[in-house]
């Protein structure tokens, strides 16, 4: 009798524990997803005595948005150069100037699930990606996110399939 009671206790505790574990996993995923979605958003700390703290963040956001727009134009121009290697190479060199180096990593999201899980293509570098645009003549990705350094140069780029 005691054995049966102990078995029921054990089963009940296992169920409670596994439910807890799943809940933890779910909340971790949610936290990860919110971390992903919040990645681009500047953290603005608003205090009554320090209202000017929002200014650098705003400037930073503007720099990133400006870089994204300029970069998107370069990507389109390079892909649409249609065999004009000189024009494509000129645009590649100009685009490269927006980056901290030619080895800046480029991550390409090929699919994003509703829970925020991202599937990636093999990561590449900006130097190779710009040549890829020239060689294939296709710009299949939108700019999802850029990271910049203190000089405003891009240090990381994330693209997403259109």
């Amino acid at each position, binding site marked *: 009798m005691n054995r049966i009671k*102990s078995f029921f*206790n*054990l089963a009940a*505790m*296992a169920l409670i*524990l*596994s439910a807890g*574990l*799943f809940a933890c*996993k779910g909340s971790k995923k949610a936290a990860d997803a919110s971390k992903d979605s919040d990645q681009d958003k500047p953290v603005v700390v608003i205090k009554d005595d320090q209202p000017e703290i929002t200014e650098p963040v705003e400037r930073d956001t503007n720099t990133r948005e400006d870089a994204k727009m300029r970069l998107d134009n370069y990507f389109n121009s390079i892909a649409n150069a249609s065999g004009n*290697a000189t024009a494509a190479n000129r645009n590649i060199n100009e685009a490269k100037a927006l980056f901290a180096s030619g080895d800046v*990593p480029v*991550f390409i999201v*090929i*699919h994003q*699930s509703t829970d925020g899980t991202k*599937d*990636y*293509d*093999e*990561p590449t570098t900006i130097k*190779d990606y710009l*040549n*890829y645009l020239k*060689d*294939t*003549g296709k710009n*299949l990705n939108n700019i999802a996110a850029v990271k910049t350094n203190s000089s405003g140069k891009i*240090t*990381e780029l994330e693209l997403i*399939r259109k």
Partner: protein
Amino acid sequence: MKSIIIKNLSKISFVASLLCVAASAFAQDNISPQRKQAIDSLALEKVRDLSKYISIIGDKETAYSEATRVMERAGELFAPDSEMGVSSLTTEEITYYKVQEYFQRLMALNYDKVKIDWYDIHYISDLEKQPDGKYVGVVTVYQRFEGTSEDGLSYKDTTKKDITIYVEKKKTQIAGRTIEFWDVMLGDIRVTETSA
């Protein structure tokens, strides 16, 4: 009493661990149709990339330095030791070359003008998960080749080729960040038909 509680707790941890492992394995295998479609498209895009690279390498107007750079990029698309089949209307024999040798021969073709187009690129065997966890599929392409000499002589043919595709989930670390990605590798390219 204390020892019974400890014993029970260790049993619970064991059961919970098993549940966790099982749940995680299920989650990994559970690829939604949308995700699968994105992976299918990614692999097909790599074949389209190869068609562009082959066209650039074969084009006599491509500068040597550019052709060399593109050859390297094209080689990166393939699994090690992959081979490319080459056929001709003049012989029934199909010769297989390692891909880098194939690219070198393509660049050195004895024509003044070379035009290569791939079209009707599609799966003939969908990507299917293998017991080792890799996905394997087969894509068919049609290649139109036109080589013209200055004296006006030309050679044209159309070949149907089957490309084995391998897709595998891999991990890499970049800038202190671990990233999981789908690695697409092209395997052997076999000639299945040659016509004028």
